[in-house]
């Protein structure tokens, strides 16, 4: 049941978990909301899974579910990107502010 690729994936999970932990650990409070929004954008990568699922669909039920998945995953990606960028756009230091 547990083959080589599963083990490799579990290693990936472990390393990715450390990565996520390290990214947040050092973040100043002022960036918490933008960063939550940023990570929200990143899990929009589920769109790739949705595209593949719809691409393999071979009956109407799967197509409907796949269509919905691609639609809302795209909203996650695009909306998540737009609001994160808008928030970060507003961060300017005194120097650049003039």
């Amino acid at each position, binding site marked *: 049941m547990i083959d080589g690729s599963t083990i490799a994936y579990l290693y990936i999970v472990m390393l990715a978990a450390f990565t996520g932990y390290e990214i947040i650990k050092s973040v100043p409070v002022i960036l918490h909301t933008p960063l939550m929004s940023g990570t929200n954008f990143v899990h929009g990568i589920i769109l790739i899974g949705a595209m593949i699922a719809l691409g393999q669909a071979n009956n109407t039920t*799967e197509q409907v579910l796949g269509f919905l998945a691609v639609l809302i995953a795209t909203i996650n990606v695009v909306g998540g990107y737009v609001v994160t960028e808008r928030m970060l756009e507003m961060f300017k230091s005194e120097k650049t502010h003039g």
Partner: protein
Amino acid sequence: MDSIVQIIYLITAFIIIVGLRKMSHPKTAKGGIKFAGWGMLIAILVTFMVPNIQGMVNISLIVAAMVLGTLIGWYSGKKVLMIHMPQMIAMYNGMGGGAASAIAAIELLRYQEASLTTRGLAIVGAIIGTISFSGSIIAFAKLQDLIKRVVVLPAHQWVNILITLAILACGVMILMAPTQILYLIAFYALLLLLGVTFTIPIGGANMPVVISLFNAMTGLAVGINGFVMNNASLIIAGTVVGASGTLLTQLMAKAMNKSVSSILFSPHPTGAQGSDTETTGSLKPIDVADAAVMMAYANKVIIVPGYGMAVAQAQHKIWELVQQLEHRGVTVKFAIHPVAGRMPGHMNVLLAEAGVPYDKLVDLDEINPEFSNTDVSLVIGANDVVNPQARTHPDSPIYGMPILDVTNGHNVLVIKRGQGKGFSGVENSLFTMDNTRMLYGDGQDVVNKLIQAVKTL
């Protein structure tokens, strides 16, 4: 072809993680999201080259859904007001969770092709993704004031436990009897219901923690879907979000001096208790003109913003006032409590929107020693985060929460809409202190009058 796709996925995973890393520093944050954006775009485009995406109908459906989704996401993201940002993040997060849950449903419908392990993982992914989906929508509705009340059913936790048990039973039945679609439908219906009953008793003040939790859950669901679909980039991105989101949730709960589990499982109705009889002294109002003189001739002023400032949309006026004061040689800083507003960093985002440079915004630990040499502290729309009862009254619901030491300032001005209590329903003894003066009225209106008064001095 597939190996090229996989290598490009690997590169995009790297780009996205570097982007996130950049986003965690104020100086590079702006570039970070663009970086991650490119990574995501490449990953999406290369997915069209995946060999098992086939059939003109399917491909046109993908393109149509993506065009429609882009339009909705773009329009809603551009249009949303900064003050509504928390609920918008909740909504987008719910969409991601919903997508993960729909994909899991497709995998469960294709039971002939999948192993028992894969279907088991799909069940777990569906549980996490669907709860995140319906829970996020409830969180959105609450913060958007579409649901105004905290709804607590009798024996609420038992209801949740019963629903959970029914979900697990359905999950087992789906694995054992995959041909019975009815189990699948019941499974999803119960999951949607659990997301609602799980979120609805939690009060608005705790909602940021819940949104952060759902964000982490969606990440986790995406990671599990990566296992189900054999896709490493989903596993990496999902796990990174799951881990960072979990930590962020804990940091936020810690800032409120609560544990995550106490927020989720023992929500006490707001305003039920509180030691309001123990405050002594009276509320002392002050004229705008006097307040303006106090601030204009001060050496140092600290402004303490809270959710009330966001509601009154007073951040632009506040910045104008600060510029006026600075013009007169007054040192002005902003004291930012981590949980002021409805999300950590909510105040920073609003003030940044108004054009306040981020180096004027000072965190709790750094600013607290400074209050003792501050002439005037101006509290606008903040309540619980400056309530000394968090220090002094062990029976208070907010006892133990770190607060801003406004009480150490020489003079305290409080702009407040009315005489009501804070979000937690606790009386605030700061307001009745000897050196505290109250400015009643709409935040924006009062600040505007202050600006005019300072100008005439």
